[in-house]
């Protein structure tokens, strides 16, 4: 196979597909790798199948299907089922269908997307407890969330996916026993002044309002100001216990879906020492990139929600912009042609960002969600508790890498993806500082577990 190419796009979600198509239409040789089996990422999951299309709103469905169709027509080389475990400028190590390969692109657009903010709470490892995104994926796979169709599910948290999931649940006739809102009302009120700007993006606003209306009509009981959520059960979830206004309540259910916002997937870029900034309202790190996704490292772009979470349609625009700039950086199109091609997507993207500014506050995570009891398991891979972390901090380790070393939190196979945010928040809370001040986990390749033999074979090729 051709390992050398103009542009490698890592990720076949909205941003990745758009970057690939835009670069290809400028004439570049483009390769796309993605860990999933089909294009579309999370937003457009299974977009090429009737099942995948059925759960989307008509406009989104059309957008996704067009993007996938353009992608297929474009002549981009596409390798699904590929895991990338090493990435440096011009050298990307991956497993393509189980075989280790080193790709040598001149430029790379990294578009890994976003993930749900992982928030530990007692009992969250019990079968029956899922992220809201996971629940949505099950529905969009034609499956059901409970074995018995009459059994209710419980939603908990604060964030955009919870809205989406609630609508899908209503649409699918699933009984929702309650929506336990952990949100932060003072922040939501701060969003109010920014809401008029949202008229700049009325379709998006309309979509949000439409969802909210459905939820009200669907008569889901919403409980606000929820604290101390606990999942209880022996071998699987049996009930959800929570506190509201100082009183403890419980709900019997076998399925709980928790969502506390969407955060950029920063794993790969962290390993490359790209500069990151901390958003103190959204409480996440995001890479500092130019408007067209250029990072501080020559030849490396970052596109989509992994740069900052603005949503799928914004990701498509960001992808296009980085594809165009990659072509410009290689000298394949002139600066003026790049400006010409970028003008419209840039204008739309700028309007979107202003219009969606209020979401930063509406869905701001409540830092109290990380104030979990000592016996709560934070690192699922190595079974490290919040108490273990706090003890290490009290012994003088105030950097997350030190705490990781002493507790093993973050040393397992997920490499800190699931426990990183909580590790930082709990460490920071213990020393009364912002999570911004306790460091970020040092990431090195391999970014994912890879068979030792594969790693050695591919790195021994001379």
């Amino acid at each position, binding site marked *: 196979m051709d390992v050398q190419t103009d542009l490698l796009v890592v990720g076949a979600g909205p941003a990745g597909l758009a970057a690939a198509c835009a670069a290809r239409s400028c004439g570049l040789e483009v390769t796309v790798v993605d860990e999933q089996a089909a294009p579309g990422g999370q937003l457009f999951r299974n977009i090429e199948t009737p099942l995948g299309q059925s759960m989307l709103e008509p406009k989104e469905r059309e957008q996704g299907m067009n993007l996938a169709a353009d992608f297929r027509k474009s002549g981009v080389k596409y390798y699904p089922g590929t895991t990338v475990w090493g990435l440096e400028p011009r050298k990307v*190590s991956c497993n393509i269908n189980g075989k280790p390969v080193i790709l040598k692109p001149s430029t790379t657009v990294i578009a890994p997307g976003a993930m749900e903010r992982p928030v530990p709470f007692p009992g969250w490892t019990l079968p029956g407890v899922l992220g809201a995104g996971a629940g949505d994926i099950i529905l969009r796979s034609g499956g059901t969330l409970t074995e018995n169709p009459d059994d209710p599910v419980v939603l908990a948290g604060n964030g955009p996916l919870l809205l989406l999931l609630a609508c899908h649940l209503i649409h699918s006739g699933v009984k929702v026993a309650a929506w336990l809102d952990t949100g932060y009302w003072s922040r939501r009120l701060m969003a109010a002044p920014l809401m008029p700007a949202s008229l700049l993006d009325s379709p998006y606003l309309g979509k949000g309002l439409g969802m909210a209306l459905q939820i009200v009509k669907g008569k889901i009981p919403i409980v606000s100001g929820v604290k101390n959520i606990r999942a209880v059960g022996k071998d699987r979830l049996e009930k959800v216990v929570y506190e509201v206004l100082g009183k403890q309540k419980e709900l019997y259910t076998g399925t709980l879906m928790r969502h506390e916002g969407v955060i950029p997937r920063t794993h790969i870029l962290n390993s490359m020492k790209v500069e990151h900034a901390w958003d103190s309202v959204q409480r996440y790190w995001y890479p500092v990139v130019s408007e067209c996704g250029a990072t501080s490292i020559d030849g490396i772009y970052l596109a989509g929600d992994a740069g900052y979470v603005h949503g799928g349609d914004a990701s498509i625009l960001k992808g296009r912009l980085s594809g165009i700039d990659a072509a410009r950086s290689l000298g394949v199109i002139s600066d003026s042609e790049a400006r010409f091609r970028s003008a419209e997507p840039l204008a739309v993207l700028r309007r979107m960002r202003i219009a969606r500014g209020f979401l930063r506050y509406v869905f701001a995570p409540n830092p109290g969600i990380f104030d979990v009891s000592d016996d709560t398991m934070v690192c699922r891979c190595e079974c490290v508790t919040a108490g273990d972390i706090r003890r290490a901090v009290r012994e003088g380790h105030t*950097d997350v890498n030190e705490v990781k070393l002493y507790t093993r939190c973050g040393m397992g196979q997920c490499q800190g993806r699931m426990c990183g945010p909580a590790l930082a928040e709990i460490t920071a809370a213990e020393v009364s500082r912002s999570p911004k001040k306790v460091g970020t986990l040092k990431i090195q390749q391999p970014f994912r*577990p*890879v068979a*030792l*033999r594969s790693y050695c074979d591919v790195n021994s090729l001379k």
Partner: protein
Amino acid sequence: MFIKKIMQPKPTEHEIIVAGGGISGAAVAYGLAKKGHKVTMIDAPTETNKASRTNVGLLWCQSKFAHLPDYAKWGFHSCRLFPELTKELEEVSGVEIPVNYTGGLIACLGDDEFNTRQDYIGKLKEELGEYNGSMIDRAELERKLPKVPFGPEVTGAAWCEEDGIVEPLALLRAYLVGFERAGGIIKNTLIHDVQPVGGGYRVITEDGPMDCERLVLAAGLANRRLAQFAIADLPVSADKGQVLLVERMPYVMPIPMLGVTQTFGGTIIIGFRHEFVGHDTRIIPEDIATEGKWAIRVWPELGRQRLIRAWSGLRVMPDDKQAIYSKLPGHPNATIINTHSAVTLAAVHTRYIPDFIINEDLPELAQGMTLKRFGYTC
């Protein structure tokens, strides 16, 4: 200038300052505190080169070094004292220290390697007079580690029953807790400079100056810059190690094996490289791939296991491989400690070095380990 002088915080006063809170510093600080001395140990808070975090925890006295017989015996002596040390530390600190005194192995691939290793052991026996290690053939190796399916090229191993493996972070933690309980003080700050002042020393830190009567430099590679007031070119270098960590497996290797060994948690650590490339701690996949391939030749099943992560770090290596315990030239109240094998030697460090710091002699075995051997007067 004048205003700056008034604004300087007043130096705090200390009897003994130990610069460096890694395994070496902690071992001697604990020993000193036990004897009733007032010790302040200074350790950098984060992200500085920390060799104590960059090791497997091997208690290794075999196979070093035919040209340094006293150093070899020093290592054996420490390994023999280790059980007493860990027992005492566990009692004093309440920290559990996982440790195995099950011996150690160095695998050999092919006949040539076996013979070379055998010759070396012969030399060791000659130089040391007595050396408690020997070659074992493949059959014997399989009897010692029956659950490890060795690869076909493995011909045998060098075996020493006095080696072992300890969980190094637990050991360090036990030392630190034990030190504090014995009255020691730990200060987490960065040292900017050290200067002789009056009859003692001034340690200038980010949080202000600290004066002491006696100084101990146990800061690993940082000793090079901290000892500048006495030595321009401390003969100690950064030794880069890169390591592969393979996922947890059923516990089949109770005896540690150099270069590929199973930790107490079940993960496998692969790596035995020494590189002198300055302070570059980048992981070079081509380099560790070589070690990975070697490990797969020794234990083929590892090839199918998943590599979870790779890390690298800098260890300390005195230029002639031997430990350095010495007064600094012209400074009888300043002691410097540098060694590659700080974990193995922790027991002798705790037992003997505190006396040396207080101006008694080094034990006979260690008397050749001062800076005199590099031509300094001290």
